[in-house]
């Protein structure tokens, strides 16, 4: 679930509020997105993929994590490279090659085509 909105990194562009398929965010008084309906989060990582500032972190767990969890430790997420990692992997952001263009996976059978998704 969405666990972190970095106030430091957020550029208040409203993108996450706009793209979240299940409408989890609201815009706060200060312009920062607020996680208003975390229980509606479907852990699809779309907000993160679309955040131009790498200011969001979605934990893989489909239940909320306690305050002391790694998912709230921005320092750790930055150092480990996890913050912004999905966007990097799919090649979104300026100067990057779209991941789709590099997506040549294994073939599951000897005669089969390589998987590309």
């Amino acid at each position, binding site marked *: 679930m969405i666990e972190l909105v970095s106030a430091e990194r957020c550029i208040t562009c409203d993108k996450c509020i706009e793209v979240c398929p299940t409408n989890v965010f609201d815009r706060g008084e200060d312009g920062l997105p607020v996680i208003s309906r975390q229980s509606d989060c*479907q852990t699809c990582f779309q907000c993160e993929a679309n955040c131009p500032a790498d200011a969001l972190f979605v934990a893989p767990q489909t239940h909320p994590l306690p305050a002391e969890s790694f998912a709230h430790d921005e320092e750790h997420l930055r150092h480990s490279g996890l913050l912004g*990692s999905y966007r990097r992997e799919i090649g979104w952001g300026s100067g990057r090659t779209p991941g789709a263009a590099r997506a040549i996976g294994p073939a599951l059978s000897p005669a089969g085509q390589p998987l590309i998704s």
Partner: protein
Amino acid sequence: MTLTADVLVVGGGPAATWAALKAAGQGASVVLADKGYCGTSGATASGGTGVWYVPPEEKAREAAMASREALGGYLADRRWMARVLDETYERINELADAGRYPFPVGLDGTSLRNGLQGPEYMRRQRIRVKRAGVTILDHSPVTELLVDADGAVAGAAGYQRQAGRPFEVRAGAVVLATGGCAFLSKAFGCNVNTGDGALLAAELGAELSGMEFSNAYGIAPEHTSVTKTAFYNYATFYRADGEVLEGAGSQRGRSVIARTLLSEKVFCKLDLADDAARKAMRLAQPNFFLTFDRLGVNPFTDTFAVTLLAEGTVRGTGGIRIVDDGCGTTVPGLYVAGDAATRELICGGFTGGGSHNAAWAISSGSWAGRAAAQFARALGRGTRQVSAAGGAGLRPTGGSSDVDVAEIIRTVQAEVLPYDKNYLRHGDVLRTALKELDGAWSSVRSGLRAEGAAAVPARQAAAMVAHARWMYTSALARNESRGMAKRLDRPDLDPAQHHRITSGGLDEVWARPEGALT
């Protein structure tokens, strides 16, 4: 807010976007209303898909068509398979050329087009739809259809949850592309898919088909969401003590996992992948690795617990019944596409392993969009007397009482998520479950009156109850095992039941062999 258009497309995934593009291509004015955000919403946007993309060479096409016939219980139709292969081939090439989708290039220099990365594909589809002049309404779940005096569909109404206001679109024709129903299981990207389209269609008298093929379950690491399953082909499954779980597998043997999960945890390791495969897997499916990287698990060397998440009719094949080549239904002006529609025409009772559903969303979306535009043009722009067709959850038949929507959802989930009810089906269990579901329907139908923003979850709950009842009624009507509709109490395929099963009804649910008279 009230808008007028020739064609209204309900949904925002691949089926909806192809429908909108092709309707607009016919010169129709088009509105697309999505519950979430067109570009990120739905199963494809998050998951990505393999695509049934087969070059038009006779031998390859023949092999492609033959490959799934037995698995699907011989309920598919060769003519429809051939149409889908043709249409998908053209549309994917259009996506490469006009849509500039960056397909990867193989070692021999050929462009590989047998799959699509979800976020990239749907981001481009949104741009294309906008450029085609379509009006996109995001965060605008449709809650009911509008119908004219002759019973033809005339538009839809819903609620814009971010703008906080109701909306209505008057249209000459409507395409329902709302996806399947995964019962809020949190399977990857599927919580927007609550089967709304089937409820809307049934309220106008449309029929369903193949609703017994509705027990797809996807593998994911325990307590997580990513139900991408292809790479579990490299998996060995284990019990807690490290003993190999015999017979368990991703393609054949998923039911062994389900049965075992009823009483103990099941663990997994992707230990059959060699080094080259391990590297390549990351490139093909970055979303598959999100979970592992964030859990700090190396899936190739560490064992991890797995679960199965219900994907219902998303990766099942049942849906709204189609009556013509334009994906029309029995309701004039109402067209269906993607997972909202039955996919039996091309894969019978089984889709596992992917690619057919994506091809179907592209093809059926394109056909439905074109046919809807033609219908609207023939109808013209005269004014029609219209009324709102929504029943359950909006206009109770009795005095409104305090029906708890969350409780209704829990009730449905308790009947459709458990492996020992929906996956490992048994006639007696299905009958007991149906009683519960009928009770839930009665209380919603007689007592629930939701308005404004509350209409959205109320209608989702109603749609899920309706879906579950068509599923189990159809599963009982199929008194045998065929495709994914296996019955523990009827383990064999019965040649006498080589037919599709049509279903429908709301207060009274029915299911019968296709073509049989009442």
